[in-house]
């Protein structure tokens, strides 16, 4: 069958397509969706070589900000390094690099770094070397491919980026090297590899590893290797942590697109709560991180050349702002290649536009940075006013709500903590904590009263129950004595609707009685079912936040499907099979019998609903047991009821139950099959229709 897909391409010759409401800046939420965000940085200016009056840049590949004062721009296409000061005036242009009296061509360089001492390090990819020069262009050293027994001849040394640490160790990223960065000493001697990406242990990886054990040598050679992805760029912050960025790659998937490495090369950013890169729901999207920059406070800026966007993370790896974009406007890029930080400005180099774009931190951005700084230093109370201001300016900033909830929790203001935890749409941990504290506080305050109330209530219930039973017996015996009633047991005259409750305690008696005396009440059964439906609705909407399902999108149809419809199906299928198997039960009887059996489950469901307001998530296990117990209880009632109703032995009951399940599955299978067919037929006709429409009209 030919698959025909139609694509509608609107051809707009005019380039400018203005958006009505789209705003470039956005942010990801806890639940993976994204929403509009107030801008933390706004593009204010851009500079190209012509504006700086030094002639056009020619596909510059890197820039580096030295001590928040000087901008070094590697304009390798023009074989020069341009130095700008903080006001974007040209300080000097280094277009002569001399080594031992001879001019050195740097046009093959891709990366630039300036050490604290002020030496320029150029990663010359084309010539397989790292050039170390002073600020006048006098080359001090040229470091070539290091010698080590580890390197076979096939290993190439293609330095793309370079940096040094405070001890003077040189780190070099070489193209096509998956081992991590080369660590070299000042003389260029090889010290080891640093910080290679780990291969994520996924099910696929484990499976392949297992297969490998059983494979022959030839097969093994043909199997894919799990080689870690090389990282695309790195940066060092003032405190010596090295940050690496890795472009998105599907084989193998890298979870840590951004890492913060300690001197041992270990990643200290947790991956647990973070999404790295652009992660739209359900759509494959490439985030091509080409550069990364980190400031003294640990804020991380990663540059995505695919979408031309800058991703800002705080020092715990929390994604707090996304800005930039691709296009031909200020603040958008064609080929973004490098990023660095200059005070409260972000500089982005575009090698196709041949310019530097300057992003200035906005008022909102200032609040954000200052607030998060205090917060991440543990000065939570001081950070609070910042967050309050932040959410006033941007209600979509969920992380601020979360931070406020945590802060209030720390301050002991659990009421506020609970409120902001709810607003933060986070997983509910803080909410749970706060709720527990609130409950405990309340209990502590009112302990005496609560205790007394509980004791009193228990006594009262027991006493009443006793009195009622005694009274009832008295009445019964009096009635028998007076000949008003026969000796038909206490419950002989019991109203039909009371049976469900009676069966709870006396299942065998109850069902037997019910069958013998034809005491079925469809009304009672249907009421129980109604209560079940209601419970199901309440469980979606009104259970406490702590226990709420994350998938809150539920329609009435779904509710009915999971309750009444499945119930009806079971009853009907059971009736069908049992009629074939000499069962004595009629359809309404089975209906009532099954509905009655549900009573414990429904009652406990309501109990759970009430308790959800008292209990916290940690104590959920209690509620789970409660529901499980009630379910078992209901199930046993169900089996018992059916066996009595149909006059089956135990084994036959179980067999009939098994058949019922089987029958239900078959029916469900057919429904799925038919609905699938209907959808296919519908889409077939729709495709034919649209084909005709677009070809004929």
């Amino acid at each position: 069958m030919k698959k025909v897909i139609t694509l509608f391409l609107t051809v707009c010759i005019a380039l400018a397509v203005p958006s009505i409401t789209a705003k470039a800046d956005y942010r990801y939420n806890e639940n993976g969706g994204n929403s509009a965000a107030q801008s933390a940085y706004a593009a204010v200016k851009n500079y190209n070589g012509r504006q700086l009056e030094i002639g056009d840049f020619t596909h510059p590949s890197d820039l580096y900000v030295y001590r928040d004062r000087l901008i070094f721009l590697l304009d390798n296409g023009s074989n020069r390094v341009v130095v700008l000061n903080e006001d974007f005036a040209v300080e000097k242009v280094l277009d002569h690099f001399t080594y031992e009296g001879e001019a050195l061509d740097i046009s093959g360089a891709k990366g630039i770094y300036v050490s604290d001492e002020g030496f320029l390090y150029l990663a010359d990819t084309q010539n397989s070397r790292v050039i170390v020069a002073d600020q006048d262009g006098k080359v001090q050293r040229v470091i070539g491919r290091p010698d080590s027994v580890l390197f076979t001849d096939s290993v190439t040394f293609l330095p793309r980026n370079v940096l040094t640490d405070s001890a003077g160790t040189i780190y070099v990223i070489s193209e096509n090297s998956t081992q991590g960065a080369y660590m070299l000493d000042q003389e260029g001697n090889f010290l080891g590899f640093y910080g290679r990406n780990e291969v994520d242990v996924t099910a696929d990886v484990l499976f392949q590893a297992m297969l490998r054990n059983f494979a022959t040598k030839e097969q093994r050679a043909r199997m894919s290797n799990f080689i870690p992805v090389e990282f695309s760029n790195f940066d060092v912050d003032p405190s010596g942590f090295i940050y690496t960025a890795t472009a998105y790659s599907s084989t193998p998937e890298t979870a840590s697109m951004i890492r913060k490495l300690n001197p041992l090369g270990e990643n200290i950013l947790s991956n647990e709560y973070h999404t790295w890169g652009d992660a739209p729901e359900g759509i494959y999207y490439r985030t091509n991180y080409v550069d990364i920059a980190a400031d003294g406070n640990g804020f991380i800026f990663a540059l995505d050349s695919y979408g031309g966007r800058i991703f800002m993370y705080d020092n715990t790896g929390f994604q707090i702002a996304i800005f930039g974009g691709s296009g031909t406007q200020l603040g958008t890029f064609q080929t973004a290649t490098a990023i660095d930080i200059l005070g409260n400005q972000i500089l982005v180099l575009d090698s196709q536009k041949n310019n530097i774009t300057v992003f200035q931190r906005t008022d909102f951005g200032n609040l954000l940075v200052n607030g998060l700084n205090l917060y991440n230093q543990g000065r939570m109370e001081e950070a609070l006013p910042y967050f309050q201001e932040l959410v006033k300016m941007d209600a979509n900033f969920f992380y601020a709500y979360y931070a406020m909830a945590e802060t209030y929790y720390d301050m002991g203001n659990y009421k506020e903590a609970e409120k902001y935890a709810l607003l933060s749409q986070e997983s509910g941990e803080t909410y749970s904590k706060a709720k527990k504290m609130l409950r405990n506080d309340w209990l502590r305050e009112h302990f005496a009263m609560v205790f007394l109330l509980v004791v009193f209530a228990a006594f009262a219930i027991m006493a009443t129950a006793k009195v009622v039973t005694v009274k009832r017996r008295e009445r019964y015996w009096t009635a028998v004595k007076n000949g008003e009633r026969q000796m038909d047991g206490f419950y002989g005259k019991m109203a039909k609707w009371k049976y469900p409750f009676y069966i709870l305690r006396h299942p065998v008696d109850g069902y037997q009685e019910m069958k013998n005396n034809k005491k079925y009440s469809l009304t009672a059964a249907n009421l129980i079912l109604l209560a079940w439906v209601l419970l199901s609705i309440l469980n979606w909407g009104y259970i406490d936040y702590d226990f709420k399902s994350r998938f809150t999108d539920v329609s009435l149809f779904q509710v009915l499907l999971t309750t009444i419809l499945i119930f009806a199906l079971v009853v009907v299928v059971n009736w069908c099979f049992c009629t074939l198997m000499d069962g004595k039960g009629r359809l309404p009887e089975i209906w009532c019998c099954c509905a009655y059996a549900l009573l414990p489950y429904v009652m406990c469901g309501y109990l759970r609903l009430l308790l959800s307001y008292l209990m916290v998530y940690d104590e959920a296990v209690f509620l789970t047991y409660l529901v499980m117990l009630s379910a078992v209880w209901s199930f046993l009632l169900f089996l018992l009821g059916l066996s009595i109703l149909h006059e089956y032995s135990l084994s036959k009951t179980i067999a009939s139950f098994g058949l019922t399940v089987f029958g239900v599955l078959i029916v469900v299978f057919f429904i799925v099959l038919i609905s699938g067919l209907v959808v296919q037929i519908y889409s077939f006709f729709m495709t034919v229709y649209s084909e005709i429409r677009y070809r004929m009209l």
Partner: protein
Amino acid sequence: MKRRRKEIICLGLILGLLFSALSMDCVSAEDGEGTPKEAVQQTAKGFEKPSDSYYSMKVAENADFELMANENGTVAVLDKRNGQLYESNPREEDPIAAGINKTNLQSQFYFTYTDTAGNVTTKNSQTECVNKGWLTYSQIENGIRFTYDLQGAGLEIPIEYRLEEDGLTASIVVKDLVEGKEDLAFYLTDISLLPFLGSAGTQEDGYLVVPDGSGALIYFNNDKSVYGAYSQQIYGRDSALITEKLSADSEVARLPVFGLKKKDFGFLAVITQGDTNATVNAMTSGTLNSQNNAYVSFRYRPFTKTTFLQGNLYATGGNGGSSAVNLTLSPVIPRVEAFSVKYLFLDKKDLSYVDMAEAYRNYLAETCGLTDSVETGSSPFYLNFLGGLRVEKYVLGIKSSVLEPLTTYKQAETILEHLKDLGIDELVVKYTGWQKDGMESRIPSKVQYESRLGGKKGFAELMDYAKDNGIRLFLDFDFVNLYRSGNGISSYSDAAQTVGSTPAYQYTYDYNLLIKKDQGRWKILAPAKMTEAVTALLDRKDDFCGAQLALSTLGNSIYSDFTHKTDGIDRSDVKKIWEELFRLGDEGFDCVMVDNGNAYTFPYVSHIYNVPLNASGYDIEDEEIPFYQIVLHGLISYSTEPLNLNAMPEKLVLKAVETGSSLSACLMYADNETLVDTKYNQIFSGNYETWLDTLSRDYARTKDFLRQVSQARITGHEKLMEDVYRSTFSNGTVVIVNYRNKAVEVDGIQIPAMDFVSEEGGMQ
């Protein structure tokens, strides 16, 4: 008998001679088919010699100008006041241009056409007509008409030039345009008119003015041509054409103008006919040629291409399957007489964009009677209230759509009281989403107050409060977006359609991928139904409780209806409908307000909310200028974008001062969190309490200055240094605004960081 015959022959000859003498200046196209070159040579004699010997014909002359032309289609206007010659095509050989770019320079227009297979081709008039000798011309009153016979494309395009008192009007005569000659199945989609009129070479200083947002300048030879040309549709894109993917955020060109300035002269071009179908283009020297030029191109016929992918797409790595392209042409084409551009040639010492804005202002006053509606000494603060919004909520655990009140009528009063107490004494309020079902209501042909916001009674109370306190309140009506049927409008039969006769759906776009989201789409009302819907409302003025009329969406969106049915309509015709409706609105009400209004609304409105203060910042642009504001200041009262949604409100306040704009805010009573899960979540800071202090402070800061200049025109605007600007008003007030983070000194006056200094009667 023989004699008689001779007599008849003689008579015939005489008549024939007479006839040919009479039709001397009217060389017909039918001659052209046979021996065109001969015909051209014959007719050159019909004109006088022009003052510039480069041209062969003097077409027309008046007090200030002389229009001349050549047989090859080139035209020029001589400005006799300064001797400047504006030529349609540069004379000198271009060192950069090659191939088609070389002949482009010699062309009077480019045209784009498509065949039935969807191949789009752009060619120029030089290679396709003039070089082949298929150009003919005839004299018209005060001008000349060239008929370009583009036989290769089966097209015939007549172009007229007419000299007027203040300049030149160039028109593509749409009504005489012929398509599909000799059964050639080509369809004209776009024409770019006079791409190089008055263009400047690499040695000249000056700039191009483009209408992007508030306006922008492109300096000659700015070496940014590699970034691509400026190209922007006037009045934004046609929302009846569906956009699959958004390009980056940009402002919309609201004014149908562009300009070119050389040292002491230049022109402002106003697109007088077909502005709805126009795109303004501007480019600088360096890449294609060595000219700096701005021009307009007109969209004649929109189309969509449908690609059918066939076969298994996933075979051979996604490259499997073939594709067949199907072209769907718009069934509607513009019914305007012509696409016309009027070039107003300006002559002034140190001409600037301010003079161009003035020229445009005068043009508006002359042609559509734009007069000032601003009161003296007024400095209103604009408020946009958000009334209600339907949101998905859980009622008894089941999702359903309920109205969430954002600002009830009573709460609106509370906010107004607060602002008044804080000293904001002059308020203009636009109330959005006040009606039944809130912001996403039915088409509002009736005035239906929402009971959950307070009902009609509640609104009457609000109006009483407003009247007592001199607050002007505008009810905002959205006639464009069609969310649901009702009020006599069906969302099935009354929705505008896109090319291909499916509803012209409107979409929200994903933030990261910028592609449209299929869920939550809505439709727009067919323009043919608009008159009926709006007039029905205007007839119910009594239900307004004294409130005024705001037509936000009608003022900033204009769109076609590409339906195959008889009521398919092009944007150019829609503009006439819109104008008529605004005229009726203006007649029925004291004041009419729009939101970031297009130029066609100017004659009828007295308030414009949310006027852009920025351009889109295209890479080719060099400066942002407040062109829109310079045109309108003192004529129509207008406001900035809402302060509370801006990332840099402080800068916005300064911009307001620089441009004489009133401040504005978009507020609601409800908590900020209310809108978080809705598609309005870009209103991330609407709660009024958050902003009371800031707004009152900013208002107090700007009030006196704005009052002082409220009725004055802006007569000067210049950039003194980076981030320091000076505006001069017609009453002599001068303001210097400093956007820097440090103080600056201008002419001995100290301007603190991020502040302004104004002085009455000017500064020395």
